[in-house]
Every structure is written in structure tokens, then in C-alpha cells.
């Protein structure tokens, strides 16, 4: 979930002197930075531009690389026509940005004026001369071979034959093969000769191909961005080789050199010996790709539309929240004893189940906090040869939790075996498994069931297994990691979490710590559906570890000294919510005392009811499930969906995210948020001077903002910034997907994940005083960048006055809501059943599937 907070290099490119180091650094900065899919972590797709303001950044990136930066103009106009963009909001924004005197002119422009929307990108222009002048399409000639070599070199276990040599790094291995075989990578003697030389530098090669040094940088950008997927992966692997299980050394420099030699090879082959370099036949002067981008009227128009699109929704939400608070401040509820409390991840997919729990049990209380529950460690499943990191991506844990005493055996699936791909065993397989495959297919079509081939969130950790949570002594270490936590370390973590969410007294007798994960079949992107705060994995181990810490008598003693007195009768229970199947598994129930065990049976029923309703709420967005059907049937259909091979949307992931609300649950309790809000519990009353607020807010940008922006960009340009439709995806080397056998890797999100998404920036609402919030976000430049550069919006809800102020240009300004009509609902069932389903996934239809803000009446 974490954005790569890279050192921002100066974007000014020095034209005359070509520095290899510098250009490689620049390339790595701008290339997509998606790690292998098993470590899928959401991040701002345009992280490279984050040091500039949002709109400047997207239009600049759009001009340089040819992306679409916003929805097309025609879509905005349609959204306005159907009322999704509110006229009053639009008017207000036009006046704010262009002044009242120009407002009618701009409104006219926005709604009617024709603009030339063609976007001619800068990248690729220079290298295109090979085609326009010599009719040589280097990409067609080189890419299929280059991609095959790269994918084979990096392959993690699909191929039966390993790449022959790979210990020395990419280039060295290639040289070794070239030397030790009767075949060659190249067609021409010249390329072979150059390849053999030890000291060939990038500029030597560019001298042959391009000639004039002034063009080198641009040429390399053109070249590497003609396959940004592969280059991006190589750049990521250079920085983080540990993201591959089977280690492969590679550097971007290797790739560039190899590709340049391939270019020489093909050019020589096509044009003959000692061909003339590119510069000798072009008239165009070199230019800086990253030069200022001319601002246009169209951009102004799009900015206003995008703002109006965003605020039309935000305004409603803000009005709803305000109303909710004012209704509540009228009725003072007597403080009753809590029947139970439950911690959930802040994830917006947990937003709905929390409100359903609260509606079934009025005395239940829920909290939201990042789903690793403040405990960071590596996890090693029993017999596993690798560690899984279970905490947010930027954190590097010092602890290791090992699983032991697992009785269950792992199951296998013959259809993924390489035997079927060999000649003789393939023959036998066809005659035996072949017919079984037919049977399996029929079975999965009509009776889908969990199988070893499906990624199962509950299989991440064995529920019967034991964990090394307690550190025996400081010297109990493995590979530099401390096994388990000491009492002091445990106490710090439990204390930190409780402070963060503001739960310091009124403990219920059972506190559930519910992590989440997601099961899905046939889905290479399943990591994107797991918990982002656990590095794209289910958080079951974290919930168990945290509960065990909080239950520890020693820890409780220390906590008491520090002012948090948890009664002995209070017990923590770890659990995992499968957000695709809508199932919950509870851990270590044996520790419950007799009374709590009884209470748990009752609570479990509440959870089950809430899960039913949650399934129903989700079902309204799935065409294959009838939301009006009997609720248990819906629940079954939802569960089947998560194990169906034919279902490209096991769940909709973060598709609906738009909001992030930091504050007391009372502020949103009773508001129907349509699964659109990250809910982070925080109580300003326990943190008047904002000591903990900084800790709460610092991950919001990279985590929630990263998710929001990745969805934004994958939605507005699914072809270039997203992964396109999932349906033709081909899994490569176990680290990525491409579209076909010869295609580039496709980073970003597939269309099926983003089609329900309204491309809005995230709105962060914090319940605290503006000056405290400002102090918090300014405490670190990296955090401040998110807000000051408008990559996410920030609103403060003043707890004393209940007034909103909007953070803009470095200060909080008053915000008046315009929305007058607030919708009320009595019965959640009929609200869900009567909701509209999208006609097509065009934004104009898709957005109508979202429900407006409703208050429970």
C-alpha cells in the first residue's frame, strides 16, 4: 500500500553532458514501480510526479507519456446532464477559480465549447525516425525476443528448463551463454564482437546508434518506455531483489546495454555494415522531455469538471455527517455496558460489516485501525522456506513469528504439474487426467468448491498451529531477526494501538481483533484484495499475535502502570474476515473463560447475521446474484463466487473507495456509507495536543491515498496505466501478466477491478482542530506533500463547533455545505434491494450504481 517515497531528483535534465548514472537514475524514477504480483502493493501510479501539484502533475505526465489524465470531456458533460455533477457545486467552483465576472463564459466553455482533445505525446518521437525514414520497426524486430529472454531469465518456476546460467547477473549470464554455445543471440558479427567486449558502456553503444550525445537521454527514454512494463519490473528488481523467491540478479543497466546491442544487430542486418547513426538523417533539434508543459484552456476546463465531480459527492457526505452529528447531539444515549467490541482494519470493505454489526447489536462497538494492528514482523509458516512480511511495506520488521505444530497436510493439484507438458507423461496425462479434467470442469461450473488451486485466505496460517509470540530470550534469533516479542515490546504495541483508536476505558468483556484477507479463484491479482497493511497478505497472524499480547497477564500489568487498566474479565479474540467469501474464522477460542465462551456463542450469531447482510449489500453490485433472494441463498452465492473459476470479479476490492474518516465512530454511526470510506478510529479527547494524531495520519497518504490514486489512474486510462481487461491475461514467470506471448508486462489494475470506481481523489475528514491537524501533517515533508500538492483532499471537523474547514494552499478555509436534501432510510433491506444496477460499465452508468448518503431513521 505504500507509495515509493523516492528521493526526488531535480527534473531539469542537463542537455549537453550525458551521464549514464544520472539517466539510469531518472529512468528508474519514472518507470512504473510495481513489484511482482505476489507482493502486490497499491501505490500512486504517478508517484514520480508527486512533488508537483496534482493537476500540474497529471497534465504534464499526460503530455510526456501520452496517458489520459482525467475522464474525457464528453463523459463529464454526460455526468452533468444526468445530475451526477451538481450544478450548484459547478457554479461555485467556477466562481472560485475564475471569478464571478467570468463565470457565465466559463460555464459555456465547460458545457458546449469544442476542444481539440488529441494528445500528442513527447515520448517515442526521436526513436520513431528509424521507422519513418528507414522503415525499420525496431520494436517489432526486437521486443518479442527480448521479452522472451527477460521472462525466461527471471522465471520463477513455470518453465521446466531453468535458464542455463543466472548467478552472475543478467548481462554476465548472457555473455556466458553466448560464449558457451553453438548458437548466438545475434545475427551479425559486429554485434557479437561488441557483446564480447568487457568495457562497453552505454554511451559507446549510443554513439553507434544515435551519434550525437545531445540526443542520448531522449533516445534511452524512448527505448525504455516503449516497454515500460518490463523495464519497470527490472528497475524494481534491481532495488528489491528479495521480491523474487528464486533469486535473479538484474539491473536496468544490463537491460539497456543488451537492448542497445540488439538494436545495433538489427540495424546492421537491415541497413548494412557501418550504418549511419540516427542523428545523421534527422533535422529535429534535441529537446527535453520534461520541459514545461504548455497550459491550455482544455486543461482548465477539465480541472473544473474534475473538481465539480469530486465535490458533488463530498458535499453530500459532509452534509450527511453534519446532520448525523446534530441529530445525535440532541439525544443523549445513556452509557450502557458494551456487549462486545471489535477492531477492524480501516479498509473500506469493512465499513459495511461494521455498521451491520452495530445495527444487530446496539451495544456492540467497533473500531478501525490499520489491519496489522500495530504488530510488525516476518512470519514463517511451518515448513515454509521463506518469510512473509506482515506489516506495511515501508516498515522493516526486526521480529520473526514462526508457526509450529501444524497437523494438517497441504494438498496438491495435478493439473498444474509439469508432467502434463512433457512428451511421454503428457501422453499418459491426456489419456487419464484429460477425462478427469472434463469432469472437474463440469463440477466447478455447477458446484464450485474450495480446492488447493484457489488462493484461500484461511490457509495463510493454520488455525490449529502454534505461534512463537513470546520471545524466550534476547539471543533467540534467526537470520538477524528476533523470534517473538519481549513483554516490554508487546506492551508498547498494545498501548500504541489502544491510544491510537482512543480506547482507554470501558472495555467490553470480549474484544474481537478482526483481520481480513480474501479468497479468490483464477486471479493473478489476488494479492491486491488482501490486506494492504500486511503487505498484501491476510492479517490472520497479526490478529492472533495482537490478541495474545493483549491477553498476556504481564502485559496487562505493565499497561496498568502506564494508565490503561484492562479488567481481568476482558479477553481478546483474534479472527479473520474473508472479504470475498464473507466468512469469519476465530482463533484460540479455548482461552475464553466460561462466561465469555457463552457470550461468544451469542456474539457469533451477531457476526453471522452481519455477514449475511454484508453479503446482501455486496450482492447488489453483482449481476449474477439476485439481491431480492432469500438472504442465506445470497450468502451461499457470495461464497460460491469466491471459489468459482469463471468469476473474474470474486470481489470488487477497493473499487468503491473515496473517503477516509478519522475520528470517533459516533460521527458516522448510522450513516449509510456504501462501503466507500476508510474508517480510522481516533478520539481527539484522549489526544488534545495531537501527539498520536501524527502517527495516525502519516500512513493515510501512502496507504489510502495510494489505493485511491492507483484506482484513479487505472480507471481514467485503463489501457496505459491499468492492466486492461483480465480476460486475455497470460501469467508470466509467476511474477506478472501480459496480454499475449509477445507482449509487454501489464502493471496496474485490471479493468474488472476498477469498473465500479468513480475516479475521485480521496477526501480525508479528520475530527480535530485545524491547527492541530496542520501541525501534524507538517511534521514530515513526505506526509505534507500528499496534502499540500492536492493528491488527497483534507477537511477538518472542528469538534467544538461541528464546522468544516477545507485545507487549501497551506491553510484551512471554512466550508459551507450546499446539499439540502438528505436521504433517510428505515430498512436497509429495501434500500439495498431497490438500488440501481449499472447498465454498462461506462462511467455514466457505473456511477449511478453508487448510492447517495443515507441516514438511518
Amino acid at each position, binding site marked *: 500500500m505504500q507509495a515509493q517515497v523516492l528521493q526526488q531528483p531535480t527534473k531539469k535534465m542537463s542537455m549537453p553532458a550525458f551521464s549514464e548514472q544520472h539517466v539510469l537514475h531518472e529512468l528508474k524514477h519514472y518507470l512504473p514501480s510495481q513489484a511482482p504480483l*505476489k507482493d502486490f502493493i497499491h501505490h500512486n501510479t504517478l508517484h514520480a510526479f508527486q512533488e508537483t501539484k496534482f493537476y500540474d502533475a497529471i497534465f504534464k505526465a499526460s503530455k510526456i507519456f501520452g496517458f*489520459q489524465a482525467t475522464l474525457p470531456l464528453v463523459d463529464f458533460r454526460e455526468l452533468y446532464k444526468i445530475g451526477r455533477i451538481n450544478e450548484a457545486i459547478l457554479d461555485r467552483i467556477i466562481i472560485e477559480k475564475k471569478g464571478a465576472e467570468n463565470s457565465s463564459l466559463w460555464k459555456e466553455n465547460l458545457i458546449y465549447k469544442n476542444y481539440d*482533445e*488529441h494528445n500528442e505525446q513527447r515520448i517515442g518521437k526521436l526513436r520513431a525516425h528509424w521507422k519513418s525514414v528507414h522503415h525499420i520497426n525496431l*520494436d517489432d524486430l526486437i*521486443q518479442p525476443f527480448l521479452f522472451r529472454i527477460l521472462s*525466461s531469465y527471471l522465471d520463477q*518456476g*513455470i*518453465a*521446466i*528448463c531453468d535458464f*542455463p546460467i543466472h548467478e552472475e547477473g543478467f548481462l554476465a549470464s548472457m555473455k556466458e551463454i553466448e560464449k*558457451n554455445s*553453438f*548458437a548466438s543471440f545475434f545475427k551479425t558479427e559486429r554485434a557479437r564482437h561488441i557483446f564480447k567486449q568487457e568495457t562497453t558502456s552505454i554511451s559507446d553503444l549510443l554513439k553507434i546508434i544515435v551519434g550525437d550525445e545531445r540526443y542520448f537521454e531522449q533516445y534511452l527514454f524512448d527505448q525504455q518506455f516503449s*516497454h515500460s512494463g518490463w523495464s519497470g519490473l527490472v528497475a524494481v528488481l534491481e532495488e528489491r531483489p528479495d521480491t523474487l*523467491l*528464486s533469486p535473479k540478479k538484474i539491473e536496468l543497466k544490463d537491460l539497456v546495454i543488451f537492448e542497445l546491442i540488439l538494436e545495433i544487430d538489427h540495424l546492421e542486418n537491415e541497413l548494412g555494415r557501418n550504418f549511419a547513426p540516427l542523428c545523421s538523417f534527422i533535422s529535429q533539434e534535441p529537446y527535453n522531455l520534461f520541459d514545461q508543459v504548455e497550459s491550455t484552456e482544455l486543461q482548465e476546463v477539465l480541472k473544473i469538471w474534475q473538481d465539480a465531480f469530486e465535490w458533488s459527492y463530498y458535499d453530500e457526505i459532509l452534509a450527511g455527517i453534519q446532520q448525523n452529528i446534530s441529530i445525535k447531539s440532541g439525544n443523549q444515549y445513556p452509557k450502557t455496558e458494551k456487549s462486545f467490541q471489535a477492531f477492524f482494519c480501516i479498509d473500506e470493505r469493512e465499513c459495511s460489516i461494521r455498521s451491520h454489526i452495530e445495527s444487530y447489536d446496539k451495544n456492540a462497538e467497533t473500531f478501525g485501525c490499520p489491519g496489522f494492528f500495530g504488530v510488525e514482523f516476518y512470519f514463517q*509458516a511451518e515448513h515454509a*522456506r521463506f518469510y512473509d512480511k506482515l506489516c506495511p511495506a515501508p516498515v522493516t520488521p526486526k521480529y520473526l513469528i514462526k508457526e509450529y505444530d501444524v497437523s494438517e497436510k497441504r494438498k496438491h*493439484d495435478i*493439473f*498444474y504439474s509439469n508432467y502434463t*507438458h*512433457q*512428451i511421454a507423461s*503428457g*501422453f499418459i496425462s*491426456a489419456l487419464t487426467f*484429460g477425462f478427469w479434467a472434463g469432469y*472437474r470442469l463440469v463440477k466447478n461450473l455447477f458446484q464450485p468448491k474450495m480446492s488447493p488451486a*484457489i488462493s484461500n485466505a484461511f490457509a495463510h496460517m493454520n488455525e490449529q498451529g502454534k505461534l512463537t509470540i513470546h520471545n524466550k530470550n534476547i539471543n533467540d534469533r534467526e537470520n538477524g531477526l528476533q523470534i517473538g516479542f519481549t513483554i516490554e515490546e508487546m506492551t508498547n504495541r498494545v498501548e500504541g494501538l489502544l491510544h491510537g483508536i482512543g480506547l482507554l476505558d470501558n472495555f467490553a468483556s470480549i474484544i474481537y481483533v478482526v483481520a481480513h484477507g480474501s479468497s479468490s479463484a*483464477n*486471479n493473478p491479482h489476488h494479492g491486491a484484495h488482501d490486506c494492504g497493511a500486511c503487505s498484501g497478505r491476510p492479517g490472520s497472524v497479526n490478529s492472533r499475535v495482537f490478541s495474545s499480547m493483549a491477553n498476556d497477564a504481564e502485559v496487562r500489568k505493565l499497561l496498568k502502570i502506564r494508565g490503561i487498566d484492562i479488567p481481568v474479565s476482558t479477553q481478546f479474540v483474534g479472527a479473520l474476515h474473508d472479504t470475498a467469501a464473507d466468512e469469519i474464522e476465530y482463533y484460540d477460542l479455548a482461552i475464553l473463560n466460561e462466561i465469555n465462551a457463552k457470550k461468544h456463542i451469542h456474539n457469533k450469531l451477531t457476526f453471522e447475521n452481519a455477514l449475511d447482510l454484508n453479503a446482501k449489500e455486496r450482492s447488489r453490485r453483482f*449481476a449474477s446474484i439476485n439481491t431480492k433472494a432469500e438472504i442465506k441463498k445470497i450468502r451461499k452465492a457470495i461464497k460460491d463466487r469466491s471459489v468459482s*473459476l*469463471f*468469476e*473474474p470479479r470474486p470481489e470488487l476490492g477497493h473499487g468503491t473507495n473515496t473517503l477516509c474518516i478519522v475520528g470517533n465512530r459516533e460521527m458516522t454511526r448510522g450513516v449509510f456509507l456504501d462501503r466507500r470510506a476508510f474508517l480510522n478510529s481516533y478520539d481527539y479527547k484522549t489526544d488534545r495536543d495531537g501527539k498520536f494524531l501524527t502517527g495516525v495520519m502519516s500512513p493515510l497518504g501512502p496507504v489510502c491515498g495510494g489505493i485511491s490514486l492507483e484506482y484513479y489512474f487505472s480507471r481514467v486510462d485503463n*489501457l*496505459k496505466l491499468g492492466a*486492461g*481487461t483480465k*480476460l*486475455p*491475461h*497470460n501469467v*508470466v*514467470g*509467476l511474477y506478472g501478466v*501480459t*496480454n*499475449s*506471448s*509477445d*507482449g*509487454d508486462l*501489464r502493471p496496474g489494475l485490471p479493468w474488472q477491478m476498477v469498473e465500479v470506481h468513480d475516479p475521485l481523489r480521496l477526501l480525508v475528514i479528520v475530527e480535530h482542530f485545524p491547527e492541530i491537524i496542520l501541525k501534524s501533517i507538517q511534521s514530515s515533508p513526505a506526509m505534507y506533500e500528499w496534502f499540500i500538492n492536492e493528491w488527497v483532499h483534507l477537511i477538518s471537523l472542528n469538534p467544538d463547533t461541528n464546522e468544516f474547514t477545507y485545507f487549501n494552499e497551506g491553510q484551512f478555509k471554512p466550508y459551507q455545505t450546499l446539499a439540502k436534501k438528505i436521504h433517510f432510510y428505515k430498512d436497509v433491506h429495501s434500500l439495498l434491494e431497490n438500488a440501481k444496477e449499472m447498465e*454498462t460499465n461506462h462511467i455514466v452508468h457505473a456511477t449511478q450504481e453508487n448510492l447517495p448518503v443515507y441516514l438511518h431513521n
Partner: protein
Amino acid sequence: MEQLLQLFIFIPLAGFIASLFLKPTRERLISGVAYTSVAIQLSGIVLFITYWLLIGSPVLNLKHFVFFKEDNIEIYLDFYFDKTTAVFSLLGALVTFLVLIFSKYYLHRDSGFKRFFNTVLLFFFAFNITIFAGNFETLFLGWEVLGITSFLLIAFYRDRYLPVKNALKTISLYRLGDICLILAIWTSHHIWHENITFFKLDNSQLVASHISDHYQSVIFLLSMIVIAATIKSAQFPFSSWLPRAMEGPTTSSAVFYGSLAVHLGVFLLLRTFNYWESVLPIKIAIIAIGILTAVVATMIARVQSTVKTQIAYASVAQIGLMFIEVALGWHVLVLFHLSGNALLRTYQLLVSPSVLGYMIHEQIFKFVPKPIKSSGSFASKISNTIYLHSIKEWNMDTCLKKLLWDPFKFIGKSLQFISNKVGLVLFGIIFITGLLLFYMDDLIPKPIDEYLHITFAFLGMILILLSFVEKKSPLKAWVFIILSQLYVVLSVALLNDEYQFVEILLYVCGLGVAALLGILVLKRLHRLEHDLSLQDFYGHIYHHPKLSIWFLIACLAFVGLPFTPSFIGLDLMYSHIDHEEYVLVTFVTISFLVLELAVLRIYARVFLGPHVKQTHAVSFRST
């Protein structure tokens, strides 16, 4: 009983036609019509086969519909049923049914939802024609439509570059196979002097006597069939199209390239087995192709690092084995082998996205770093060499391009100097002269006549090659195609004094309408878009989907798809080329071979690929 056979052609046809008229947003209805019609077919076939087995599984033959009849020529549909048809029809209906159910969910909300189901139903129709065919003509009909549906499904994601490029690559090889079949039919007409049915070929005495009478012609005919089968089943050296054809949704790849379409080569061999059983050279050739493919494809499969290409090559290797089995006469084994292989590969392709999760999980528990191999030894040198060649797919792709297509491009390019207005006028004048000569046939002395028709055929071929390499104007390329066809007609007509007016009219009618439609579409598009070119792919379908459909219809009519008069015309024309006319048949065949490619090339370049106007999201070229 025989009469029931036509039912299995009509059901898929009815399903296909019904599906054309549904609204694109009615997903349930579209998929419902599709899988219901296939389900009806499936149950019909199950009942039919049960009954057929009960009555002792006789071989059935049904002469169905006569297209055209003349003194010495009769073109008719014919259906046939034996155990091979039984297995293929059952397998085809079962796999298609399952995959359609799968696709109903899988393709949900895809913008091409309707297009997908339409195309799969058309495919299913063509597949059934092919396997129920009782003579070469009927088989060819299905065979050719299969090629077109392949093209449409590979280029399903038509707004990207690679699918379109690979669709063209695949169709060009398929076309080669089609032409081989046409040549086989042509030879067959001259050997048998009739439209021979597979039923008759069962008569081994009759076949044997013919083989000894026309040994060379039979060798030629059978070679053509073997090439057609080799291409369709992606055997060596035509294997490289198969992995590249997997560009469409996973489900269509599964049904086409995992199971049904690739096994049709085996079907063709089974169907013609009686014909070549006793012809040793052909038998050896088939076994050799099988062995070579099994070995080479396995080597390639072993180094593939993407799931779908690995499955593709593994499947190709198994089909290689099936070729051997067919040649050795183990037909029951073949039928089991191919059914198992088809089901296995379909399943593996359908679950291929799961590989990532499953294998990573396996790896976490099982991974053992591979020991560093010693290098430098002779053995490692050999293994490195094999590895590198396998990665390059043993250069099959490059070699095919060099041998098959580059010569045509070279000739076309070297003649491009006449590809201008003067040249066009010149070609026009020559044509009119030719036409006059045709009317004054009696005045021309025989020897000159001989040379004339060859000259015209040659000019026709040159024209089509010129169109094939035209880079600038689509309209010009289109006009060259029209001219080329006129020349071919003229040439064949000149040769045959007995050529009747009706036949020419039939062919020219079909051509004329298609030609005109094409011109109209291109003119209109030119008016709307101003500059049209063939330099690259321009994706105009984005703004002009309707024009694109009209142009596609024009193209298909031109190629001589069964629903057009030009189809019969084409067949008739071949029957009028005498079997001694090698030079003429070469020119005409090359014309027909390049014709489809030239036509689809225009369609693809103008309408498909990433849209040239970047006013909306447009994909990268490398995807």
C-alpha cells in the same frame, strides 16, 4: 437416419442467426441463446449416437443440396457420419457448451460480449460443417469459415496492436492451408471427373485403381491435404502461430487453440486415411512430421516461461504423436488421445490464471535453489545451444516469413514503380483489350490464345502483389485487388472456350457488389477522416463501427466466403483450369492466396489496432 444429419448443421446455424439479432446489452439472452442451442445440439448428438450404436454404427452418407449443376460439373453439399464424426461432434458440443457457460460469467460486461458469442456460434457452425462433411467441397466450406472466425477471435481485442498483428499472422497461414485444400479439390476433380465423396473413398479397390492410374496427381493431392492438416494442427514447421493466437479471452483460446480447432488437422488425416493408407511416401511424411513436431515442440514447451504458450506447445507435441498414431492406423487410440488432450488443455487454459497463486504457494514450501551448472564442457555447450534455439522457437517464424511471404513482398516492391496512375490506366487498357479479344475469340490463333491467358493470369498476380505491398492509399490497394480479380476471370475465361456466360456472371456479380461496397466505404471514410493510409494500424473502428462492419462484409465476399456468389464462382473457375495448366494454376493460386491477405490487411490497417486519435485511452503498441 441419414436425413437427421442435416439437423446438426441447422441447429448451430439457427443459434448463430438468432444471436445476431439480440441487443448487445441483453447478456442473459445472448448467452442463453448460445448455450441453449449448443445444449440442444449436445443432447441431439447423444441421442443420435446412442441410436446409431444400437443399429450397429453404419457409415452414413447424405447428398444434400446441389449448388450448381452443369454437364460435367456438379457442386453439392454432402454429409457423412462415422465413428470419427461421432467423437468429434460429441467432443465439440461438450467443450463448446461448457466453455459457453463459463464465458457467460467470464465475459460479463465486456464490451464485446455479443460479438464473442456470435463468433463462437459461427465457429461452432463451421466446426460442425467440417466434421459432418461428406466431400471436400463441404469440408472446405467449414474449413474456411473456421479461419475467418479464428481471425475475428484472435483480433477480439481489436484496439491493441498485437492481437491484430497476430490475427493477420494466423490467418495468412490458415489461408495457405485453404489454398492447399482448393488445389486438392482441383486435382481431385481432374482425377475423378466428379465431386468425390468420402463415402466413395471408403471403397478401397476403387481408390487403389485410381492411385495407380494417376500416381503423380494423387501424390500432389495428398501432399496438399497433409500441408493443410499440418497448418491447422500447428505442426512443424507451422507451430509458431499457435501460442500467438492466444490473444482473445482465455475462454476462446481454450475452445479454439486448446481443443477443437487444433485437432482438426488430425480429423482431416483420419477422414482421408483410406486415400493415403497405401501411399507410402505420404505415410512416411506424416510420421516424420509427427516425430519432428513432438520433439521440437517439447523442447520449446520446456523453456516457455508463460503459462499459455507452455500449454500450447505441450498440446502441439501431443498432436504430433497423434499424427504418428493416425499413420500407424491406431484410430481408436487417436480418438481417445485427442479427446483427452482436448479436455486437458481446455481445462488447463481455463485455470491458467490460477497458476500464479498455486505455484508461488508450492514454491514457498518446496523451493530448492538449483545447483550451479558447470559450464564450458561440451555437454553444457550442447544444452545451452538447444536452450537458445528453443527460446527462438527454432526460428520457425522467421524462416516461414522469409520463405513464404518475403518473396511476394519482394516482387511487389520491385514492381512498385508501375503502381501509379499511368500504370493503372495501362492496366485498364490492357484489360479492355483482353475483353475485346475474349469476344473475338475465334479470330485469335490458338498459340497466341495460349500465351494470352497465361499473360493475363500473370498480370492478375502482379496486381494483387502490388496491392499487398501498397503502403499509402487503401483505395488504390482496393482497386488493384478488383483489377486483379478481373484479370484472373478473364484469363480463365479466355482459356476455356466452353466457358459459359452464367458462370462468369455469377462470379463477377459477387465480386462487383463487394468491390463497390468496399469503394463506397473507403470513400466515405476518406471524407470523414481525410487522410487514410496503410503505413500502420489506425483503429478507425473506434469512431466508425458501422463502416467497419460493411467493409468486413465486402472483404469476406471478396475472399469468396460461402454465403457469396463468388464462392461458387471460385470453385467453378478452378474446375475450368485444365489439370495440365501448371503455369496458369500457379498464377491463379498465388492470386487467391494473396487475395485474402491483401483484403484483410486493408481491413486491419484501416479499422483495427490502437486508434490514431488519442482523444481517449489508447493502448501501448507493445501490448
